[in-house]
């Protein structure tokens, strides 16, 4: 009976009543404000697409978008290269190494991006940790100018987003039945061959999910680029903030927001099934 209702269901009126508070809350505090913001991007200062034209035509803003995409891409690739080995470590049967790895991944995950960005400032400042160590080794050396550069933003963002790459991959690796690599070894494949022929392909869903997650988060990230980056490293999120607060150009900020939203949502929706957010959130 394909159309049989699930037994034990609640009646429609009760279901709607239960969902109503959340729907109302999100409608008023979330969807409505964002809708209004996007609306002003096409209605002010005039009813036109001027804001968007400006965004996509003026070289300054185009550079910002390109820089953001570039940083997001490099971030994703770095996170993948750094994160895969850790995910592989976490999926192993041994216990001590796994526990250490889990702690090393979870604690940064639970620490706010704010605190972690501060830590990077401390590391990279002219009078920061790295320079102090270098100065200690060679008192005559000139302190390195690391902060407020693209490189600083890249490193800090990779660090902040790395756990979001590791967890989906670890989850995918952990769900590979252990008999599969054993079968490959039994049939004559070496360990490296087994990895590339069996393990890696089966972990790809996790890899895609992790890459998508990190890429989309990098696009819209504010805290780290704002603190660790400078005026030379303007990204989409910091540009929005600047337009909104410093220049009070809300419609333009709305236009940039719209572009960012389209990018983020578009990517997410297209690969919805790969994300399976509940796996990342529920992973404890």
């Amino acid at each position, binding site marked *: 009976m394909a159309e049989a*209702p*699930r037994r*034990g*269901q*609640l*009646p*429609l009126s*009760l*279901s*709607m009543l*239960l*969902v109503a*508070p959340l729907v109302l*809350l*999100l409608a008023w*505090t*979330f969807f409505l*404000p*964002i809708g209004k*913001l996007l609306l002003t991007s096409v209605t002010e200062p005039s009813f036109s697409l001027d804001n968007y034209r400006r965004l996509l035509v003026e070289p300054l803003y185009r550079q910002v978008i390109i820089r953001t995409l570039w940083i997001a891409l490099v971030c994703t690739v770095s996170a993948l290269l750094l*994160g895969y*080995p*850790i995910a592989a470590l976490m999926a192993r049967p041994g216990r001590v190494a796994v526990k250490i790895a889990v702690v*090393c*991944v979870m*604690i*940064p995950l*639970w*620490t*706010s991006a*704010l*605190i*972690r*960005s501060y*830590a990077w*400032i*401390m590391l990279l400042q002219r009078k*920061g*940790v790295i320079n*102090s*160590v270098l100065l200690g080794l060679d008192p005559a050396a000139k302190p390195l100018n690391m902060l407020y550069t693209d490189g600083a933003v890249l490193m800090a963002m990779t*660090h902040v987003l790395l756990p979001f790459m590791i967890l989906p991959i670890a989850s995918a690796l952990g769900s590979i039945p252990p008999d599969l690599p054993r079968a490959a070894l039994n049939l004559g494949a070496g360990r490296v061959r087994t990895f590339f022929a069996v393990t890696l392909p089966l972990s790809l869903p996790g890899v895609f999910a992790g890459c998508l997650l990190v890429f*989309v988060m990098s696009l*819209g*990230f*504010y805290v780290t680029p704002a*603190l660790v980056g400078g005026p030379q490293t303007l990204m989409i*999120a910091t540009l*929005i*903030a600047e337009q*909104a*607060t410093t220049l009070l150009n809300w419609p333009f*900020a*709305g236009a940039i927001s719209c572009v*960012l*939203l389209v990018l983020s949502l578009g990517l997410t929706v297209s690969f919805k099934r790969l994300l399976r*957010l*509940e796996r990342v*959130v*529920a992973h404890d």
Partner: protein
Amino acid sequence: MTKQAGLAEWLFRALCALILVFLMLPTLLILPVSFSPSTELAFPPRGLSLRWYQLFFSDPGWVDATLFSLGIAALTTVCSTVVGTMASVGLVRGRLPGRQTLEALLLAPLIVPHIIVAIAVYLQFAPLGLTGTRLGFVLIHTALAVPYVVLVVSAALQRLPPSLEMAGLNLGASRLRCFWSITMPLISPAILAGAVFSALASFDETVVSFFISGVEHQTITRKMFEDIEFNVSPVIAAASTVFVIGTVALMWLADTAKRSATRRSGA
């Protein structure tokens, strides 16, 4: 063959160790800096001092902001857990048309970048005088935190066989009693997890809080953000250390509570 495998294995472990250091090092470095006796961020620190901790716990700016954020987090946790659990029950056990679309929409706050939410909400709240108020903060933090609750509680509800609730009804319990006596104890680990995620999400929320903070009420994240930008003193390190330890303690407590709740539910 074994020797080669051994070498590859050690290389792998060395690589992992380096990456793990990269993961932990920045967070760990805050600790020694918070004990440094001078305002200069010197490394290695020349001596140990508790002055920054003393400052953090005594300065009214820091204390007020921390208490304000804690209060908001507590209220947000309660609201988001209640609203989120209700919505989860309605979605999983209910008969709603367009359920899948609704679910996707309810998860939107997780995907939309906070900067967009921040300026949109500011434009919405400012004319209503909600910026800088407890109510305003709790409203938007709840909206941002609820998706965590919905995700985790929905997953738990789907794993629960509906025959348990049917048995409860058959034996004479009202719908509410069924939920209270049967459903809730069995999904309590998930509700707890959702509550912890909400609390953290609210306390650590930076971007939106920055934009809608007011003069009298500042969140701790706003205060830290400003201090980091303009005045990089080790008191921020002390504050950060306190918060990281607090978070880790909370997660550990939650994990213990969750495990005992799971045991009690006979799973």
